[in-house]
């Protein structure tokens, strides 16, 4: 870690810190009144000014913009869909006044229908539909916050985190995912806003899962959220973000960066369920570093969106570190879930397990893109990767792109990939017990997802099953 920190300090020292003078100072409010689309150093400067950030963060943003502009678009995954994004037609920060919220009438019918069927209360519907910018359960959050504060646990929005705990943020920001990692990580780094900041002090076990939903607002459901979680030595925490209900947004590009750090003997589980409206491109970089005997678990559910590209990664850098990635993706009509997992074993006696489940329906496409890398000195490491794809309908598609880079001989690797269809015989078996064909198919699909669902808190599991039920409605085998 110290190595990468040093590198970053060096990177920063090479910056010429004159962006502010170079790009001038405008009145931020005026700027956003005019409502500029597209990316520029002026915009980046505005964001920094408006947030009243320390200079080093502002420098990082400017530098990230240069990195972003210098990197080509990915030439892999669904390049055709990626080319649908018009990068000049996007508000990279707030929208001009008056355009900030959606009219309830503009929220698509299928979203409203899903809200109703899931029994989502009206206030919450308005929030998820992008009509209101704030969700009322702030109250829950505040009482929870007091409890946490007593134990020294920090759970804040990323902007507040930077303001109130600059030292910690400065130490860890960008150390797991450097801005140079990929084009979208660079994009996020230059315009990030919102997201969560969590720090758990040594030896502290956070008893209840920390749910982003409690302190959610439009910004951190936003386009370029930035999350940083640090579990100090021997601490334990479970963080949950997202919700199973669909989230509607008129901003089509969403690109989050999530950095997670488990120091010695720490345990972090990060649970995400995302269900974006069908117009969204969701291009996320998520990565965790596990130090000696630490454990990281990603539990990641992806529904909705037009294209999702998300490959949670775990770097096992300390001896005995463990990682688990459990993911599920549901690709319906005109959707592509390009998801996967990366495990990097860089220390001896490390172990990882990847379980990836995908369901493709109608002409939906689910791809698994995986990397398993074992460094030379990572002796006695264990990797197991299991990919299960379920196809529903004749036009559904699934692909698997596993990459193995094993530079160590003393290592145990297991890899299994299966593609299955809902078998006629299974349907017949269940219908012969009185279930209609639709119910039978749903039961089979829910069963397929069960290894994932059973890891979720009960209310999420119930909601996810109900959601799958809605998605499955009217489908033909």
């Amino acid at each position, binding site marked *: 870690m110290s190595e990468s920190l040093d590198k970053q300090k060096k990177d920063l020292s090479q910056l010429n810190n004159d962006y502010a003078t170079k790009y001038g100072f405008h009145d931020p409010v005026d700027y956003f009144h005019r409502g500029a689309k597209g990316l520029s150093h002026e915009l980046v400067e505005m964001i920094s000014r408006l947030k009243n950030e320390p200079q080093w963060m502002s420098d990082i943003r400017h530098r990230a913009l240069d990195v972003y502009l210098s990197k080509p678009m990915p030439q892999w995954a669904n390049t055709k869909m990626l080319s649908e994004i018009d990068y000049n037609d996007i508000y990279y920060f707030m929208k001009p006044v008056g355009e900030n919220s959606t009219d309830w009438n503009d929220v698509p019918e299928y979203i409203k229908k899903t809200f109703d069927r899931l029994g989502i209360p009206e206030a919450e519907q308005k929030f998820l539909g992008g009509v209101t910018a704030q969700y009322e359960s702030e109250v829950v959050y505040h009482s929870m916050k007091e409890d946490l504060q007593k134990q020294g646990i920090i759970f804040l929005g990323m902007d507040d985190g930077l303001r109130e705990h600059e030292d910690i943020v400065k130490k860890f920001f960008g150390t797991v995912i450097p801005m140079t990692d990929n084009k979208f990580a660079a994009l996020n780094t230059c315009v990030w806003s919102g997201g969560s900041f969590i720090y758990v002090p040594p030896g502290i076990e956070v008893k209840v899962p920390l749910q982003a939903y409690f302190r959610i607002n439009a910004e951190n459901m936003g386009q370029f959220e930035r999350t940083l979680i640090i579990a100090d030595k021997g601490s334990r925490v479970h963080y949950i973000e997202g919700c199973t209900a669909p989230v509607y947004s008129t901003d089509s590009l969403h690109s989050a960066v999530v950095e997670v750090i488990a120091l010695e003997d720490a345990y972090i589980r990060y649970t995400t369920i995302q269900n974006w409206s069908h117009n969204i491109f969701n291009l996320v970089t998520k990565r965790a570093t596990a130090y000696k005997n630490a454990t990281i678990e990603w539990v990641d559910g992806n529904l909705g969106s037009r294209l999702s590209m998300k490959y949670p990664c775990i770097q096992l850098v300390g001896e005995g570190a463990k990682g688990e990635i459990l993911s599920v993706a549901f690709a319906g009509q005109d959707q592509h879930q390009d998801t996967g997992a990366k495990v990097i074993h860089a220390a001896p006696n490390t172990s990882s397990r990847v379980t990836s489940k995908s369901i493709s329906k109608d002409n939906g496409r689910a791809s698994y893109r995986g990397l398993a890398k074992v460094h030379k000195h990572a002796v006695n490491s264990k990797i197991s990767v299991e990919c299960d794809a379920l196809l529903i309908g004749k036009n559904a598609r699934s692909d698997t792109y596993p990459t193995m880079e094993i530079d160590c001989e003393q290592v145990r690797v297991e890899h299994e990939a299966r593609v299955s269809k809902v078998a*006629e015989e299974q349907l017949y*078996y269940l219908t*012969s*017990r*009185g279930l*209609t*064909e639709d119910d039978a198919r749903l*039961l089979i699909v829910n069963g397929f997802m069960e290894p994932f669902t059973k890891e979720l808190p009960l209310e999420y599991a119930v909601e996810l099953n109900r959601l799958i039920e809605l998605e499955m409605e009217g489908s033909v085998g």
Partner: protein
Amino acid sequence: MTDKKALFEFKDIHVRVEGKEVVSGVSLSIKAGETHAIMGPNGSGKSSLSNALMGHPAYEITRGEIYLDGNNLLEMRADERSRAGLFLAFQYPLAIPGVTVANFLRTALQAHRGKEADMSDFRKLLKSEMKALSIDEVFATRYLNDGFSGGEKKRIEILQMAILNPKMAVLDETDSGLDIDALKTVSTGINRYHNDANAILLVTHYQRMLNYVKPDFVHVMMSGKIVKSGGPEIALKLEDLGYEWVEEEVNHRAGV
């Protein structure tokens, strides 16, 4: 005309699978309270007949009629036949990964009742029926037939029957894969279910289960036809003499 007193009746059933006729004109009339057995060598069409009666889409009934309690089953799908009171215990039950036995049974029971099955009532029912069949309680939370032994699957089939309590139960080779103790337990379970209002059709290659579940009538099936019908004595004779005995008799009758 349909015999008013028959609970389950099928007439002149012809079944085609994969373009081949495998059942050629089978008829049977079963009254409430009765136990019938269809015996026959492997490949004689017993499972094809059972599946066709249940409504398996791959087993096309090209000719014939089926009535259960006066209802014409022929135009019904498998789920409708099930809800009308027909049950088939499968020779080879399939696994449904991720779906627990308890969840599955509750879903099936709800499908039959057309309403939610009260959780605590259901648990009680499940517990007592599992106990009666000597099925360990942990099976309630295991995934349906996933990694079950042959014998465990058969017990679970009978458990399903006990819970759904059908009017007419067709049991396809339920005895196969069972050791002698399991055979006794499963047979006890079947007899416990059986009453004056329902009926059983045992489909089997061997007669050993018939020692415990006593049939009133035995029918011998060969090459897609019922070639001989009579009382339980036929089963015993088959046990002694094998199917060649019936075969010779049939050939003799046909003047071959």
